[in-house]
């Protein structure tokens, strides 16, 4: 199994969720994060003093998937989250050694 972590633009979440649904992902965890990369923060003036807002709001997705779905999910994420602008985000892939469904105790692919 693999764990995919993706950082995307917040307003893309709905599109991404629906697209993932279509390729058969039926479990997903999201959290609210901030980040920077090529898309830098920006400087603002607050009460006459300039300061840098280093971080930009992003949404972080976590998906545990079967190995055979990696390609499809990667491609789906890439397309659904794409705008072409800086800050579109990243996809990170990890090896997931084990998974377990708390409700039933199922393990491995069954648990996803």
């Amino acid at each position, binding site marked *: 199994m693999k764990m995919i972590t993706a950082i995307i633009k*917040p307003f893309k*979440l709905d599109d991404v969720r629906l697209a993932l649904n279509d390729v058969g992902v039926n479990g997903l965890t999201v959290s*609210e994060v*901030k980040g920077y990369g090529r898309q830098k923060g920006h400087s*603002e003036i*607050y009460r006459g003093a300039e300061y840098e807002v280093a971080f930009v*709001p992003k949404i972080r997705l976590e998906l545990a998937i079967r190995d055979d779905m990696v390609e499809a999910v990667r491609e789906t994420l890439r397309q659904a989250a794409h705008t072409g602008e800086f800050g579109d985000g990243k996809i990170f892939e990890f090896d997931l050694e084990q998974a377990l469904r708390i409700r039933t105790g199922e393990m491995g692919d069954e648990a996803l």
Partner: protein
Amino acid sequence: MKKRILAIGLVAAIMSMGVTAPAEAAVDPEVAYILNSLLFLIGGFLVMWMAAGFCLLEAGLVRTKNVATMCLKNIGLYAVAGILYFLVGYNLMYSGVDGGFIGSLSLWSAGETAASEAVKLDGGYASASDWFFQMVFVATAASIVSGTVAERIKLFPFFAFIIVLTGLIYPIEGAWTWGQGWLNVRGFSDFAGSTIVHSVGGWAALTGAIILGARRGKYGPNGETRPIPGSSLTFATLGTFILWLGWFGFNGASQLALGSAIDAVAVSQIFANTNMAAAGGVVMAMCLTKFLYKKVDLTMVLNGALAGLVSITAEPLTPTIGQAILIGAVGATLVVFVVPLLDKLHIDDVVGAIPVHLVCGIWGTMAVPLTNDGTSFAAQALGVVSIGAFVSAASIIVWLTLKYTVGIRVSAEDEDRGGDLSELGMEAYPEFGHGSQKI
């Protein structure tokens, strides 16, 4: 309660038994002058407070990323409205209308000042108290617009519209009735402004919403409505309570006099009716949404309270308490049905100002003859239509002019980021963990 009885007894004792105040009572003119002015001042500060109510209601119903912008617009428009009303509005509305369409163009200044040796009592009240009270009304009309067009309008074009609305549109249509212009001559009756204040804001908002278009993402590709819940129902509720409180000033002080017993009776009735129309709206909205949707919709209940208040505003004096409750309840019913209707038409009204202020404003105005014999449906309809036509036409011209010159809508990117970052460069709740993303 001994004390209470004592107090009442005392009061009763004070009065010679059976004293009656005729309608042409004999309160000392100077005392009446003071009391009339005091009514304007109390009413005025209560209506001023409504600016905070609109601000919170709207800040609570937009997404986090537009909250600071909403706050800025509301405090800004209150300031702008006052200045414009001083520069041109008041005299356009009240000076020399004489059955016509418009007053005169001049700065307002107080008729008498405290520096004078003596005060002429003929006016009945201090002219500055009247100006103050009239001034806060114009801000109310402006506040209505800001809620509807929120989350996508550019800041300065918005203020440009407000300048025209408060400096020209409102004073001119106001002159027709309250300035003793032609509509007044035709017998149109609008006690505290269901049409003259609320519908006017509503028409301006409606035309703005149509010309601006809906917020990105509000209507799906298949035309379905995608609700965009607001950032804080607590602020929205507080805003509604503030408006409710302010409305006692709005309607109560529109009696314009407290210098006789009969005026005191009238203001008291107005307070009671105003309150009960709102109560009727609340209860009706609770029951209806529970019945229709299985769950009570708090935002509809808040709109219901305001619907009741707007509905009673055209005539808060003549209804009985029971009638006031019903008038408010009908208003709330209208709101519960018009809100989804507007969505079907893809008219995106962020806070529900159009159903509340425009639709209930019309309803309240048309309901006047039901309880007030001195009025007619024809005259009421004439007022509703003529004011509606004028304000809509004028608003459309201003909105379109702005649209095709400076532009009125923020860029898609700025809309996604939110007005707070794009127009103000600051966030309402900057600390981590307050996203602007409804999930």
